[in-house]
């Protein structure tokens, strides 16, 4: 229950150049697929140009009074182009999808790798929400961008470019006339984007507030009822819903004005093509058929152009998410010190450790020294904020001490490096997390090569076999989010079984057993004793029976060690621990010689 660290930092976001570079690396890695994708899309787009062109020929043939042969030839040409176009468009879609998804998969794996292997010190500083949004929302946004629009965007862009080329190939003047629309499109975008950006940001905020109001009220329904806050929460939902609606409507007003500007661009381009064509036909520079082709080309562009322009926002937000992913992917992989010294034994030594959470805050640990012999069981006792949890984290190397050192078998933690520390010290923390998947998969996180028999043996050792057997599918029951919900006692059992599987020489236990109720807490205590047998063990004692079972009890207060000794010795000594023990035994508080229990807190 130590105070949350106050200094937080955001994970890095890559610059535009770095984002392109990371993307470029991905493209290079799947060079062949990308090349094939580009070739297929271009070929498909080119085949699509044939039909309008040939339709122009038909117009000319009709105008020239030619026979049916010319028409049939043209029709055959369109048919052949149709088949070719279909094949290449299909291949293009497939290759674009494959290339894009592969690049994305490699990127998300790299991001997840960096996040999972983030050094403990950095992990303490970043916000969990930031981490979650990178591996969750950002990946989802980029995936959706690629999945929903990726192939369409590439095809639309190719269609626009090729059609413009086709018009120019008919006659450069017709092509130029079609280009008249371009500046109008650009102006429309430049009018719209700077205006809509802030609106969309506000809309997202408003929608976020709306769902917060809704979720907060509904999730806390029992508290809302108990405190009779129904009207207040209902009012808040209504207000925020209306505010979000107002913003949505004004964004949309802006959007429809943008739409009108896009229509104006279409109108300008089409009129320019037809008028130019008119004069070119009069001057006998082009045929009526060519003008028809050009107009049909241009009409064909409406769809892809609108799609490209409208996707601008989505592309932008996918780009922003991509930059956030690239920023994490760019984090350096953590170097492992490779000095050969291994811990001599499973002893633990804490030497004058000071730990401060922030500038100016009182130290959470104030020159704490402690030695634990191999196989010894030591219990830490003290009020919330006495520094027990912080000490446990420092011993595990999850927090770096501000000064002082921690030694494992005579070797400083820093020298061992994170990976080897993990092999030697195992922490069962207050935070229980049941990983979603089957129970076996959850256990296998501690030791992937563990088979079913070993998993069952570990469960038996902590006394969890009975309830696991009673689950609908035993070890293969899906647990965690969306699966079978485990009670907090069962989740703790699972954490202890993981400890047995991992089999480390040193164990640090900082578990909250009280959630499980009295009988559950006792079962868990027995399980913890069984799981840590033979290991050097440091127990943060939330319940004094845990202290009673330890070889030695260390009492902490205000970040310092104030008393230590065996349980019996300390009780006999009549100090703080003795007072605590009496109040725990149920004697009315305030009757002991050292005053109320609160005197410790």
């Amino acid at each position, binding site marked *: 229950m130590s105070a949350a660290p106050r200094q937080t930092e955001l994970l890095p976001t890559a610059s535009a150049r770095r984002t392109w570079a990371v993307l470029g690396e991905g493209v290079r890695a799947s060079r062949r697929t990308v090349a094939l994708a580009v070739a297929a899309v271009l070929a498909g787009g080119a085949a699509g140009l044939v039909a309008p062109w040939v339709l122009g020929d038909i117009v000319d043939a009709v105008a020239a009074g030619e026979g049916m042969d010319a028409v049939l030839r043209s029709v055959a040409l369109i048919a052949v182009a149709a088949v070719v176009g279909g094949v290449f468009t299909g291949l293009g879609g497939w290759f674009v999808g494959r290339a894009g998804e592969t690049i994305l998969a490699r990127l998300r794996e790299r991001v997840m790798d960096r996040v999972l292997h983030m050094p403990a010190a950095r992990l303490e500083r970043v916000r969990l929400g930031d981490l979650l949004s990178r591996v969750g929302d950002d990946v989802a946004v980029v995936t959706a961008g690629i999945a929903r629009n990726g192939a369409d965007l590439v095809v639309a862009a190719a269609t626009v470019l090729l059609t413009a080329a086709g018009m120019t190939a008919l006659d450069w003047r017709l092509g130029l006339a079609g280009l008249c629309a371009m500046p109008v499109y650009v102006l429309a975008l430049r009018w719209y984007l700077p205006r809509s950006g802030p609106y969309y940001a506000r809309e997202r905020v408003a929608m976020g507030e709306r769902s917060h109001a809704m979720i907060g009220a*509904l999730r806390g329904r029992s508290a809302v009822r108990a405190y009779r806050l129904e009207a207040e929460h209902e009012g808040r939902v209504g207000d925020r819903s209306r505010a979000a609606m107002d913003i949505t*409507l004004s964004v949309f007003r802006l959007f429809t004005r943008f739409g009108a500007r896009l229509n104006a661009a279409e109108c300008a381009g089409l009129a320019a093509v037809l008028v130019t064509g008119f004069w070119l036909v009069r001057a006998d520079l082009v045929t009526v058929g060519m003008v028809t082709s050009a107009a049909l080309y241009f009409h064909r562009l409406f769809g892809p152009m609108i799609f490209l322009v409208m996707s601008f926002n989505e592309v932008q937000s996918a780009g922003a998410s991509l930059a956030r992913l690239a920023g994490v992917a760019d984090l350096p992989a953590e170097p492992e010190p490779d000095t050969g010294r291994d811990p001599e034994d499973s002893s633990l030594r804490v030497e004058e450790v000071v730990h401060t959470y922030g500038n100016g805050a009182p130290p959470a640990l104030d020159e704490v020294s402690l030695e634990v012999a191999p196989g010894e069981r030591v219990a830490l006792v003290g009020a919330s904020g006495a520094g027990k949890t912080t000490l446990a984290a420092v011993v595990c190397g*999850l927090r770096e001490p501000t000064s002082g050192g921690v030694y494992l078998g005579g070797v400083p933690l820093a020298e061992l490096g994170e990976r080897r520390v993990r092999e030697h010290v195992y922490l069962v923390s207050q935070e229980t997390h049941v990983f979603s998947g089957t129970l076996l998969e959850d256990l296998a996180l501690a030791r992937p090569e563990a088979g079913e028999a070993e998993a069952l043996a570990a469960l038996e050792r902590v006394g969890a076999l009975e309830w696991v057997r009673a689950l609908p599918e035993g070890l293969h029951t899906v647990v965690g989010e969306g699966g079978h919900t485990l009670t907090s006692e069962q989740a703790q059992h699972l954490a202890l079984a993981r400890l047995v599987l991992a089999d480390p020489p040193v164990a640090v236990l900082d578990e909250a057993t009280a959630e499980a109720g009295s009988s559950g807490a006792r079962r868990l205590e027995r399980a913890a004793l069984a799981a840590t047998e033979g290991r050097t063990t440091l127990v943060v004692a939330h319940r004094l*029976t845990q202290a009673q079972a330890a070889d030695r009890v260390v009492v902490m207060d205000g970040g310092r060690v104030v008393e230590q000794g065996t349980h019996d010795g300390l009780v006999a000594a009549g100090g703080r621990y003795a007072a605590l023990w009496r109040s725990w035994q149920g004697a*009315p508080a305030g009757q002991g010689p050292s005053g109320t229990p609160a005197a410790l807190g």
Partner: protein
Amino acid sequence: MNTPADPRVPADVRSLRTRTLARNRRDIALGTALLSLHQAAEALVPVAIGVTVDRAVFTGDPLALAWCTAGIVALFTVLATAYRFGARFTLRAAENEAHLLRVETARRALDPRGERSGLRAGEVLSVATSDAEQASLYTQAWARSIAMVTAIAVTTAALLAVDVPLGLGVLLGVPLFMLLMRFPAEHIARRSEAKQAAAAGATALATDLVGGLRVLMGIGARHNAALRYRRASARALEASVSAAASNGLYRGLVTAGGALFLACVAGVAGWMAIEGRLSIGELVTVVGLAQFLAEPVQGLGMVGQAFATARASALRIVRLLNAPDAVAPGGHPLRTEPVVELSGVTYKSLRGLDLSLAPGEFVGVLATDPRDAEALLELLSGSAGREQVGGTAAVGGVSVHDLDLAALRGAVLVEDHGATLFEGTLRSNLLVGADLDDPGLLSALRAAAAEDLVTGHPEGLDRPVADRAANLSGGQRQRVALARALAADPPVLVLHDPTTAVDAVTEGAIAEGVARARAGRDPAGATLVITSGPALLARADRVVVVDGGRATAQGTHESLAEEHPRYGEAVLR
């Protein structure tokens, strides 16, 4: 107890839809008319191109060109304006309906009497958020489908005006082609669902692993977790690539099929033009219309989907709105002081429970079965249905079922074990049931042994509390919820396991603080604590042991510990 008496609550999907259309009729009507006009204008663009080629480009008549250009500008003006305003009216109808449904479902879900829709908490949330939005899309689906039909009708008219058999051919051909494309499209939809599921699975795994990152670190399992994610990501990739393949196939079929159809139309129209049955302009028009027609036909297919989604959502909304109340409270105020009297109460797991709580008393309840505790809490918070309860359960001399809910909840505050805090600040959370100044709030925090949350923080009482109080530890949340209940200072306070997330030392401080705060109330407040914490039980005036649904022993903590060996076992020590 039964269906809401309010006749304005729609009884089924049909009446919900009727109400939707009725209360947004102006916006829907205007939107539909304008969007139809827009679609008609879109359909006329290829006609305009044909006419221009025919009358101006082919003839070389500048006056005709001027007329045609003016016509095109006019057509686009109509097209753009109709869309601009039509889309606005349509969206306003949808947004307004979504807002009304959202507020209505939230009100139903939050009603003090509760609801028995059978929906789980998460489902109620999704009804009030996403279903309210989806159901309102009904308005847009209407407007769009009518507009699409208009576009098809205009195209039909234009084609038939050019040539009747050709027009009929195109009109039958396009829908037939779209119908044929439905089969591969359904296959694609399945593939892409599988792909989305795999991608969502990988993302869920990622957030799950990162959510448990500290646990992973503690057990040195980060490398194993990374391997597991890589496997899930590879599975997602495989699904995406296979979806991309079928998607590509579909895309290729649509492209080839569309172009082949166009070749047929062009061939027939070209032949007719050579025969002199069509002019050049008509030829262009037919080809252009054939190209255009695919859009509204395809669009109509999508609108069908929108209707189906909106219907499914509407169904869930109707179910929630029509859910019977969980309780049917009476309208009586308390008759006497707020004494709690339970005698021979049967409810859920309770089998004739006797329990009393006098003003100023501090009573501990040790329930050996958590279900007994839950049942007792439901009873006291007024959320137990009248017909399920036997015996007498009275507060202030009136049966809890006859009490006005506001009167009951004003007299008895049940602070549940769940400890839901609201997003805001520490202060806003403490003030939900109280009207206190800072020293008052601080003394409530002190009584809950939670003063360190304020003194150790630069922002003090204005310290932010995040959504789900995610920025507080379990023990901090529990103590803040307790301080909130103490600040509300109700005549009767019922606490459920208020110290499960704190250590023994803090529990002692809390027991002392709660007892003092409640005794210091004027008049002294009654307190019922359901707990197995020894410090709280030791501080109570009297402890009642509830075993097997009834009170089996009663006395002080010390006497019970001495006389009943099972008591000592049950107390959390």
